[in-house]
């Protein structure tokens, strides 16, 4: 069920999804041009999940994210220039260059941090929800993770605690069908939703390519959590268009090109949303194109900012170890 969403909000969602898409394309470009140290895991194809959920959150609500975290961070309000700077290991980055792609964190947007340990932030999100309840500040914590995280036992420990203590935390499982190079059916026995309901946790499944559906369901679960009715689990069916990371180019051995093509042509979240906006006369093609151009310009200058930004100084290496 989809609740009515105002026009401004819808256009904001559109802009956010485009921002993530273009951000990630720039990341790939930086990698290809050998300007980025290390690797990065692109969120292209999954934009509707992060945007649909974060648009349902307050700015002081919390999120935790994963190795595939750029989309979550941007959707929660991070600025692309400081994101790029972080990805390049520059002083101006969100973590002064110390974290890199997998560790973007930002108190100002409630971002408790991306995490390079699969399921590594499930406890952190649950703990943030504990604080929220204890301090009575009404915040909700959203914990993003891939379906691969269902292999980590700690996920079940946390769901049990969250349900026992009725904590305002939403576990968002992005099932993009693959862990690194293995299909989820080879690693996941039984039924995913039941893994949450078994712990008494309210569980829903939603089309992760439909930003409006994600938003509506998230909204409902988030408000329920905020009311004090406890945690929820939201399973989002989605797909990553590109490799596990930017260097994962030859994917034939683990998935078919035709499958990728299917998702890109028939299930693209931006396309689906564009069609809706136009057919419902919420926006015209040209105004959407204008947004795209604006975002593209923004991303270019953000990249430029990052490329030209200085590295941290050697004296910073042993700062920030202890508070």
């Amino acid at each position, binding site marked *: 069920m989809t609740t009515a969403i105002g026009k401004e909000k819808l256009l904001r969602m559109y802009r956010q999804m485009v921002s993530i898409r273009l951000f990630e394309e720039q990341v790939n470009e930086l990698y290809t041009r050998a300007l980025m140290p290390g690797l990065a895991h692109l969120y292209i194809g999954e934009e509707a999940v992060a945007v649909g959920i974060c648009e349902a959150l307050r700015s002081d609500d*919390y999120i*935790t994210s994963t190795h595939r975290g750029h989309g979550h961070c941007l959707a929660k309000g991070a600025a692309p220039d400081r994101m790029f700077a972080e990805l390049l290991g520059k002083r101006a*980055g*969100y*973590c*002064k*260059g*110390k*974290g890199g792609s997998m*560790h973007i*964190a*930002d*108190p100002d947007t409630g971002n*408790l*941090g991306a*995490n390079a*340990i699969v399921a*590594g*932030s*499930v*406890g*952190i*999100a*649950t*703990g*943030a*929800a*504990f*604080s*929220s309840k*204890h*301090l009575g500040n009404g915040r909700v*914590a959203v914990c993003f993770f891939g379906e691969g995280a269902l292999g980590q*036992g*700690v996920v079940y*420990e*946390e769901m*049990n*605690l969250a349900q*026992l203590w009725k904590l305002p935390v939403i576990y968002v499982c992005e099932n993009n069908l693959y862990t690194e190079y293995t299909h989820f059916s080879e690693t996941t026995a039984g039924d995913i939703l039941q893994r949450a309901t078994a712990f008494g946790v309210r569980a829903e499944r939603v089309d992760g390519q439909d930003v409006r559906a994600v938003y509506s369901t998230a909204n409902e679960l988030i408000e329920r959590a905020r009311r004090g009715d406890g945690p929820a689990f939201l399973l989002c069916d989605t797909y990553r268009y590109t490799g596990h990371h930017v260097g994962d180019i030859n994917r034939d051995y683990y998935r078919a090109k035709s499958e990728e093509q299917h998702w890109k042509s028939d299930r693209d979240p931006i396309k689906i949303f564009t069609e809706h906006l136009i057919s419902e006369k919420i926006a015209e093609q040209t105004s959407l194109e204008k947004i795209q151009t604006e975002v593209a310009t923004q991303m270019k200058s953000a990249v430029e900012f990052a490329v030209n930004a200085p590295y941290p100084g050697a004296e910073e290496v042993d*700062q*920030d*170890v*202890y*508070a």
Partner: protein
Amino acid sequence: MPEMIATRELTLAQAVREALAEEMRRDSTVCIFGEDVAEAGTPFKVLSGLVEEFGTNRVIDTPISEAGFTGVAVGAAMTGMRPIADIMFGDFLTLVMDQMVNQAAKVHYMSGGKWKVPMVMRTTLGATRRSAAQHSQSLHAWFSHVPGLKVVLPSTPYDAKGLLKTAIRDDNPVVFFEDKMMHHKLKGPVPVEEYTIPFGVADIKREGDDITLIGTSSMVQIALGAAELLAEAGISAEVVDPRTTWPLDEKTLIDSVKKTSRAIVIDEGYGRYGVTSEIAAVIAQGAFYDLDKPVMRMGAMHVPIPFSPPLEDLTVPTEKSVFEAAQALCR
């Protein structure tokens, strides 16, 4: 301990409880997570009475989910609480390594100094309880190895109280190890007035000239006992307690050995790749030109701790074994 202050004799457990109660009164964001911490007051009965004063919202019984509730503590610490995670037996630390090492220890650095993790993990160490291999380990070396954590090893009720209060107020993750055999057996004076003890300041528990005995946790008591025996044998032993293995007060340790020119490091963790290794290496380097004899190390024997009492007793340093080693070194 400063002189002229009103004190009472408390057990280690009472001192710990008092520190917790005081800090919980002072700061409503301090809370405790753990198995059977509330009505039961832990199996070691260290927390008895706290739930009555602070309620089940702050003294919180958890399922048997060490990783789970430690994760909650990390997240809660980042968002305004000062949680204390209670890990009943130090052996169960194996279950929280990811939360403590990949998360708690690194959050501050990885975020470029933006998020902080002001949490304490209280846990136990020590053998000779006839609890066998999975309930007798002293795993503090693992945490001392990890930047981002601080590690505390109190040896007296006085130190336990003052250090625990410091740990709770510290803005970093602190792992606090209590010897489970000392909880109710060890008594000592504790001031009535409030006090805290800074981290990274070693304490000279007994002064002496001939040899330095560096002990941690209950091994300080062993060293003090050995020092008595040594005194009877005409050897003057200085007993130094680093109190925190990280930060480590290298200077006090080295200065003592420079004075005595002989040293034994005694710690109940395994000797190999452990606390005795680090401290011995620090001294061997820092007091290189003053040492008359190689620094000696005494840790737990390199075996899983056996259940059988006569075997278990062989695995840890004793007053007698320290006395004999020191005597041999001073010959």
